[in-house]
C-alpha cells in the first residue's frame, strides 16, 4: 500500500490551468523531492496534498484513505513553510507545542513529547526563548519541531531552506536527512535547487509548467534523463547540447562536422541533439565532438572548467587541474560513447 498516492491531479485558477494531471505514488517512509523552476506548480501540488488549496479534479489519498474532502487537520500531515511560520508572540516551547494544541492527550504527555522533540533537534536550552532571540537556522528547527511533535504520516516541506545562507543550508540539509533516517516518516520536500534535490531525495520528481517531466532516483535522473529539460536542469554546470542529424547505420552527423556512431533508436534523417555533461567532456583523443579555442578558464582546484567554441555557442568541458589548456589554445573535446545522450531535437525526448 502506497502511503501517499496522487491521481490525475489538476488545478485551475479561473481560466489558467497550472497543474495538468499529476500522478505519483509515494512509498511509506520515502523521501521524495519535488524540483522545478519557479512557477512550475510545486507549491500548488504540495498545498493540495495538505488541503490548503482546493482540488480542481483528481484524487489524493494518504495511507489508503481518500482525503480530497478532508480538512488539513484530518489528513495526518504536517507542513513546514518557507518563512518558518513560527509565532513571534510565543516561546519556542509554545510554538513546538502548538501542533499538539488540539490533540487529545494529557498535558504531561504533551510536555514530554515537546521535550523529546527538543532533544532530537538539540533545542532543549532554547525552549523558553522567543523566536526573535533565535538565529535563522534555529527558527527553522523550531518550525520542524512543530511539525515533528505530531508524528504525522507525511511531512510536507515547502522550500524550508531558501531563507538560510549557503553554509547553513548545507548543514540543515544534512540535519533533515538524518532526521528522516531517524524518524522514518514519509517526506515530500519542495525546492527549486537541484543540488538539494539530488543530495536529499530517495526519489526526485522533476516538474515543469504543471507537468511531471520525470520521476526517478537521483542516479536515474542524472544518468538517464528522460528529456532535454531534465538533462539540463539536473547537474551543474548544465549538460552541453550538440545538434546533429541521424544517418544510416546509427551514425550521427553533428553540425560541427563530426560523425559519431551510436546505438540509438533514432530513424535516419531525424534531427537530434547529442547531450554530454561537462564532467564527461574533456580534451583528448577519440571522436572529436567539439573543436575550438578555449574562451574562458574556471579553475576549481582539482579540475578546471573550460569554455570552448564560438562565443555564445560555447560548450563547457572539464580539463586537468594542474595543466589546463591556455586561453586561446585550440582544443579537441571528446567523450566516452556511453556517456552521450541522444534526444529528439523536436520533442526533446530521450532516444536511448
Amino acid at each position, binding site marked *: 500500500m502506497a502511503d501517499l498516492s496522487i491521481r490525475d491531479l489538476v488545478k485551475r485558477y479561473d481560466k489558467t490551468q497550472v497543474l495538468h494531471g499529476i500522478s505519483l505514488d509515494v512509498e511509506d517512509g520515502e523521501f521524495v523531492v519535488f524540483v522545478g523552476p519557479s512557477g512550475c506548480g510545486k507549491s500548488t501540488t504540495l498545498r493540495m496534498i*495538505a*488541503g*490548503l488549496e482546493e482540488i480542481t479534479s483528481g484524487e489524493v489519498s494518504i495511507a489508503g484513505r481518500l482525503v480530497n474532502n478532508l*480538512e*488539513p*487537520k484530518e489528513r495526518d*500531515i*504536517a*507542513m513546514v*513553510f*518557507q*518563512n*518558518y*511560520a513560527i*509565532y*513571534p*508572540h510565543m516561546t519556542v516551547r509554545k510554538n513546538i507545542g*502548538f*501542533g499538539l*494544541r*488540539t*490533540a487529545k492527550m494529557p498535558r504531561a504527555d504533551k510536555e514530554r513529547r515537546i521535550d523529546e522533540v527538543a532533544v532530537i533537534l538539540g533545542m532543549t536550552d532554547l525552549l523558553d526563548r522567543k*523566536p*526573535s532571540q533565535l538565529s*535563522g537556522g534555529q*527558527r527553522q528547527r523550531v518550525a520542524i519541531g*512543530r511539525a515533528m511533535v*505530531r508524528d504525522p504520516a507525511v511531512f510536507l516541506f515547502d522550500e524550508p531552506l531558501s531563507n538560510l545562507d549557503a553554509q547553513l543550508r548545507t548543514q540543515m540539509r544534512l540535519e533533515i536527512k538524518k532526521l528522516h533516517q531517524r524518524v522514518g516518516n514519509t517526506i515530500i520536500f519542495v525546492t527549486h535547487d537541484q543540488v538539494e534535490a539530488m543530495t536529499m531525495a530517495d526519489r526526485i520528481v522533476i516538474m515543469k509548467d504543471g507537468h511531471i517531466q520525470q520521476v526517478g532516483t537521483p542516479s536515474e535522473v542524472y544518468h538517464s534523463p528522460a528529456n532535454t529539460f531534465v538533462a539540463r536542469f539536473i547537474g551543474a554546470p548544465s549538460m552541453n547540447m550538440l545538434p546533429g542529424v541521424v544517418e544510416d547505420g546509427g551514425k550521427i552527423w553533428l553540425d560541427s562536422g563530426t560523425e559519431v556512431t551510436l546505438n540509438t533508436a533514432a530513424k535516419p534523417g531525424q534531427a537530434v541533439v547529442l547531450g554530454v555533461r561537462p564532467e564527461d567532456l574533456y580534451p583528448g583523443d577519440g571522436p572529436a565532438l567539439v573543436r575550438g579555442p578555449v574562451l574562458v578558464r574556471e579553475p576549481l582546484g582539482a579540475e578546471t572548467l573550460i569554455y570552448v567554441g564560438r562565443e555564445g555557442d560555447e560548450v563547457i568541458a572539464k580539463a586537468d587541474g594542474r595543466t589546463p589548456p591556455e586561453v586561446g589554445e585550440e582544443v579537441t573535446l571528446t567523450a566516452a560513447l556511453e556517456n552521450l545522450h541522444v534526444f529528439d531535437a523536436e520533442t526533446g525526448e530521450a532516444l536511448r
Partner: protein
Amino acid sequence: MAVTEEIRPNADALLHAAPPRRPANLGQILRWTLLFLGGIAMVMPIAYMISTSLKWPHEVYNLQLIPDEPHLENYTYVLEDGRFYGWFINSIVIAVVTTVSNVLFDSLVGYTLCKFRFPGRYIVFIAILSTLMIPTEMLVIPWYLMSQQLGWLDTYWGIMFPGLMTAFGTFLMKQFFETVPDDFIEAARIDGLNELQIWWTVAMPLVKPALAALAIFVFLGNWTAFIWPLIVTNSVEMYTLPVGLSSFGDEADVAWELIMTGAAISTIPTLVVFLIFQRYIIQGVVMAGLKG
C-alpha cells in the same frame, strides 16, 4: 619620542573645550519656532482648564493664567455633587463597552475581509467604507427615530448602539491583518485550529499595536461624545460626563469654573487608558523593527 608627545592630544583640553558651535540655519530656526507655537497651542487649553478650575466665579472672564486666589472649592463642590459620580460611571460603562465591542467586532470583520476569499467580499468592503462618508449629524435624527420606536431612548443601549462597531475600525484592522503572513494562518489550520481559534490565538496577538491604537481612538471618541448622548438621554441620571458637565450652572449663567473642574477630573481616565495602551504601540513598533 618627542614627536609622539606632541601629537598626543591633551585630554584636559578636550574635556573642557566648548562643543563645536554650528551656526543655526534658517530652516532650523523655522522648525523650532513652528514646534514651539504648536506646543503652546496644545498646552494652552489644558493650562486654562486647570487655571479656570482654580478660580472663583467672578474671575472666570479675567483671562489671566495664574488665578489671584487659587483654591480647591470647585473640586470639593463637584466631587460632593452626587450627580457627578453617576455621569462618571455612565461614561465609563459606555466607553469601556464600546471599546471592547469595537476591538472584537471590528477586528473580526476586518480579519474576515482580509483573509477569506468569498463572493461579494469587495462589495461588502466598499459598502462598509462608504458609510465613513456620512457625517454623524446626518445620522442623528434617523437614530433618534429608531431609538424611539424600539424604546431605546434614555438607555445605555440607546447611547451605545451607533458606536458598537465602526467602519473606520474595520478598515484599520483589515489593513493591519494584511501584515499577518498567510503562512501563519495556514500553519495553524494544519495544526487543527478552527477559524475562530486562529483569529484569536494567532492573528489577534500579531496586531496588538493596532488593537491598542483602535482602543485609544474608540475610548476617547466615546468618552468625549456629546451630540448623540445629549439627544438620546432625557433624565439627568442617564447623562454622560460631557452632557452632564455642560448642564452645570443655570439658564442665566454657565458655571465655567465647575465645568472646567469636571473636565479636569474627566481627563484622568483618558490618561490612564492612554498610558496602558501606548506601551503596546511602542512594543509593536519595536517588534516590527526586528527582522523575521
